[in-house]
Structure formats: C-alpha cells, structure tokens
C-alpha cells in the first residue's frame, strides 16, 4: 500500500495490469532492436506476459480491494473476468503465431496491440468509476480497430476496420454523453455516486443511463445494435475475431454487470429495456445464424445470441445471477476460442477455413478436429455433458426467480436454443454424414493450434461433466466492498 495525497494505492491489485503493460512495452522494444522478424519471440513474450499476469492474480483470489480512490476494484468478480481475458489473450497469440497473413507483416505491432487490448479489458473489468470505464473501453477498442485492419492485403479486412471504427466511435459517443448526464444527475463519477442518484431517478438520470446502455450495447453487440458484427467478424483476421468474440464481450459484460449491480442493487425493475434488448438479441442472433454460409459470420451471429443469454444472469441481480453469468461466460469463452482454434488448425497459415461449404465430410478425413468442432457446437447449443448445457440451466434458474420479465427471458432462451440446435446440428450432421469431402482436405496440423483446441475441449468437457468444480455451492462472485 502506498498512500499519496489521501489516495491509497494497492500495488498487488494493480500487479496483473502492470505486468502485462511491461510485456507490451517489451514487445515493442524487442521489435525495435531486432533486425530479423522474430515472430515466435514476440508472440512468446506476449504469452509469457499473460502467464505472468495470471500468476500475480493468484494471491488476489477471494480478496476484495478497492484502490485508486475507489475508482478501481479488484474482487472475485473482476478476478474471473481477468482470467477469461488473459486466457483469450494467450490463445489468440497462440493462434496468430503461425498465421503470417494475419499480422500484415508487423508481428511486433500486432502482438503489442493485442496485449494492450487485453489490458483495456482488464481495466474495464475492475472499473468502478465512469472515467475508468471509458478509459478501459477505449484502450480495448482503439487497439482492436487497428487489429481488425491488420489483415491488410485483404479488402475485407480494410472494410472490417472501417466499419468497426465508425460504429465503435459512435458507441463511445453515446457512452460519453450518457456518462455526462449520469454525472450531472449524481454529482460524481464513481458508481457509488450514481447509485445514490438512482434512488430518486430524475429525467437526467434515466436519459443518461439509457444512453450509457446504448453505448455498451453497441460494444456488446446486443440487437438492435449488432449490425456491424457479421461484417467485422468476417473481415478481421481469424485470431483477432476470436479475441473480439471473447474479450470484448467479457469486458463489456463486466461493465454492464457491475453497473447494474452497484447502481441498482437488487431492484432491477428499472432495467426492463435491457431485458427487451436481451430478448431481441437471442432471437436475432439465432435466426440470423441460420442462413450464414461463412463460419466466422455464423459465430458472430451466435455471439449476439450468447450475450443475450448471459444478460439473463443479470435479471435477478445478485451473487447467484452473477455466478450464473460468470459460469456461462467461461463456458462461452472455452467453446468459442476452441471453435476458432479448430478453424485456425485446419487453415494452418493458409486461407481461412471459414467457408461452411468446406465442412461436409470433414469427419472422414480429419476425425479429431471434426470431433472437437462438434463438441464446441454442442456446447454452444447447450447439449448435456457440455459446459454450455449447465450454464444454460443456471441462467434459466435465474430467470425463473426474476418475475415476469425473467419468465419472458427464459422462454426466449429456450426458443433460441431450439433454433440454434438446428443451426449447429446441421453443420455437425454435414460433417459426419458425407463420406467424401467436397473440398480439398485441410492439412493443417500445427502444434500451437492443437494446444488451443485441446485446452478448449478439455475445459468444455470438465465444466460440463463436473460443474461443481466451479464452486457453485456458495455465491462465487462478489462485487467488491460498496
């Protein structure tokens, strides 16, 4: 602890972020001094940084510290989100390490930007202050705008970057204006101050909160603010898409959850519009996925629906709800990263293996990747014995306990699941029912991709078969001291 002008700083709470920042700067410096392009070394530093940051997180488990004058919280809640962010960073770096086309020929900038994006996400996960939320969000977003365009030779990547930066900045504008109105209604930037203003909601407060939620909704890609997702997901480099699908969602969900939890406590009646957004997202995401012929687009639509599911966990704001949300987030992260890892494995530095026309008959030629893909799809759809199934059960239980809106959310969740069963089931059926592959047999067999696929598959199975490992019995998550 360092005290400074009345502000105490808890260095252990900030250590993960500091370690990762050091790793990012080191990548830039190494990239500067080395003549040759040391792709492996640069990505290796990033992965080591993620591991190091993870190690500094270990002693933080179970502790709740609020530091930097209450602006940044390190609690069980942010702990889990940090873990997801670090994991997705490591997997993304693993998947990128073999894909020369992904980083546009500058692996140093690519790896450093990924690391800085992850730091932005970690700042968001612990942010207890409107200004810190904005800072973290922008650090994450600005890095990703560039990363989306780093598959530079492909026109689609340029398009993705342009669309992402335009709509992302629009979202930030809503967030800023919303924050300004919240500040005006509460007289302070901390979420506690906003909480005080929520007890007597003024027009200013309601408008500010609405704009704030629209801004976060854009970043989370809740329908109807999802229009950018399919194009950006399709156009961005494969590994970057994986990072977007997991890290951006995780960090934005952390903000949304903390804001709803701290500002509204257990009274969520004012959040009806948010439930409506979740319902629309579940329907739009699953129905939109039906007609996709590109796996990256399909996973984009799927992620819209998955975020809708996770918002159900907020309906009964409380430790149990957050716990369900967190479990589902971990399941979603494992399966989504795993699915992208399979794509990267099959592609192996060549063309992206995203066209669904290439998947029928895959099981006959590449049984293990096909099996892993099927597992991830089953988990995304929520088939028993996978992590996604148990996550959905937890979310449904939360919805049941949350009154009429919760019931509506539950019904939509079930309907969405049925639709998604068709979407994923069809691909799996095609993979296994055709004996002759229609396209060229993918030869990709790279070790880093195998590591990522195996980790995802293992996690999905373990969480699906033994969910109690996740310590569900007691409220797992607590949002730090109020």
């Amino acid at each position: 602890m360092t005290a400074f002008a009345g502000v105490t700083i808890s260095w252990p709470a900030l250590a993960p972020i500091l370690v990762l920042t050091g790793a990012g700067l080191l990548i830039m410096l190494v990239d500067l001094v080395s003549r040759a392009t040391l792709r492996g070394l640069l990505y290796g530093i990033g992965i080591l940084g993620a591991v190091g940051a993870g190690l500094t997180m270990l002693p933080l488990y179970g502790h709740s510290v609020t530091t930097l004058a209450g602006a940044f919280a390190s609690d069980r809640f942010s702990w889990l989100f940090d873990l997801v962010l670090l994991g997705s960073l490591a997997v993304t770096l693993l998947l990128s390490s073999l894909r020369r086309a992904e980083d546009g020929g500058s692996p140093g900038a690519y790896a450093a930007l990924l690391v800085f994006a992850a730091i932005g996400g970690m700042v968001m996960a612990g942010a207890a202050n409107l200004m810190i939320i904005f800072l973290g969000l922008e650090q994450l977003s600005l890095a990703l705008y560039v990363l989306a365009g780093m598959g530079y030779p492909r026109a689609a990547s340029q398009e993705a970057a342009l669309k992402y930066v335009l709509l992302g900045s629009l979202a930030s504008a809503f967030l800023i204006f919303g924050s300004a109105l919240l500040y005006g209604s509460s007289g302070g930037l901390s979420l506690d101050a906003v909480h005080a203003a929520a007890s007597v909601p003024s027009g200013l407060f309601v408008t500010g909160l609405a704009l704030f939620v629209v801004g976060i909704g854009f970043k989370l890609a809740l329908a109807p603010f999802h229009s950018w997702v399919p194009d950006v997901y399709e156009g961005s480099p494969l590994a970057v898409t994986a990072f977007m699908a997991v890290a951006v969602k995780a960090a934005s969900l952390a903000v949304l959850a903390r804001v709803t939890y701290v500002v509204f406590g257990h009274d969520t009646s004012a959040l009806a519009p948010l439930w409506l957004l979740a319902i629309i997202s579940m329907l739009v995401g699953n129905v939109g996925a039906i007609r996709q012929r590109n796996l990256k687009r399909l996973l984009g639509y799927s992620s819209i629906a998955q975020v809708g599911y996770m918002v159900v966990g907020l309906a009964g704001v409380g430790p149990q709800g957050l716990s369900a949300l967190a479990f589902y987030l971990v399941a979603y992260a494992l399966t989504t990263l795993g699915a992208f890892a399979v794509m990267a494995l099959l592609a192996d530095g060549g063309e992206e293996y995203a066209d669904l026309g290439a998947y029928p008959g895959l099981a006959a030629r590449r049984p293990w990747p096909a099996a892993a893909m099927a597992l991830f799809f089953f988990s995304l759809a929520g088939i028993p014995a996978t992590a996604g199934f148990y996550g959905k059960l937890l979310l449904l239980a939360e919805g049941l306990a949350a009154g009429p809106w919760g019931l509506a959310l539950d019904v939509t969740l079930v309907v969405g699941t049925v639709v998604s069963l068709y979407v994923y089931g069809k691909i799996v059926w095609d993979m296994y029912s055709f004996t002759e592959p229609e396209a060229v047999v993918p030869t990709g067999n790279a070790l880093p991709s195998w590591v990522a696929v195996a980790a995802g598959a293992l996690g999905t199975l373990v969480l699906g078969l033994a969910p109690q490992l996740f310590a569900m019995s007691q409220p797992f998550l607590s949002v730090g001291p109020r």
Partner: protein
Amino acid sequence: MPTSPWSIIAVYFVVALAVAGAIAVVPGIFTRKRPTKQKLEPYECGVPPTSGLEGRFPVRFYLVAMLFVIFDVETAAFYPWAVQLKALGMFGFLEMVTFIVVLGVGYAYVWKKGGLSWR
C-alpha cells in the same frame, strides 16, 4: 418582454435561419436550369481547368499530421502536472516519469519504423 438575455440570441438564430433558408429556396423557384458543359466546369479564374479534382496527394502529410496530433495532445497532460508539481511531490514526479517512458517507447517505435522519415 424578453426574460433572459439568451432570448435575443434565439431571435437572431430564427431570423438567420429564415434569411438563409429564403436565399437558398427562393431562387430555385424562379429560375430555369439549362446546364451546358461550360457552365458545369469548375471555375478556375476563367482558365480552362487542366485536370480533374480527384488527384491524389501524398499520404505522408496525413501521417505527420496524425502523429503530431497524438503527441501534441499527450503532452497536454504535462500542464496540470507542472502546475501542481510541488503538491504532488516525489510520487507525482515518478508517475510522470513513467508516463514519459511509455510515451517515449511509442515515440521510438514510430521513429524506428520510419513514421517520421520524409520520403
């Protein structure tokens, strides 16, 4: 009559809008448009235009301007720190050193990668 000094500005705003709108709309009602090739050419002091407008100009202008904007705004953080230097003490000083180091790494990166070379 006016309750606030700002109502005068409101009146001014309305009048300005009305006049500008009238100027924009009224001529359109009374004129007939008969465009010819000469009329549609860009006006270049009476001289026939030599080239189209879509000529490119070098991207290095953008690059330098963008880099300038970033580093210029970042250095704005120095002013409040300098004003409060004494009150912030050693901690504030080290904080700023950290900031400068981070900024310096970025600067070195831009420099070494050729972002500042005028080619």
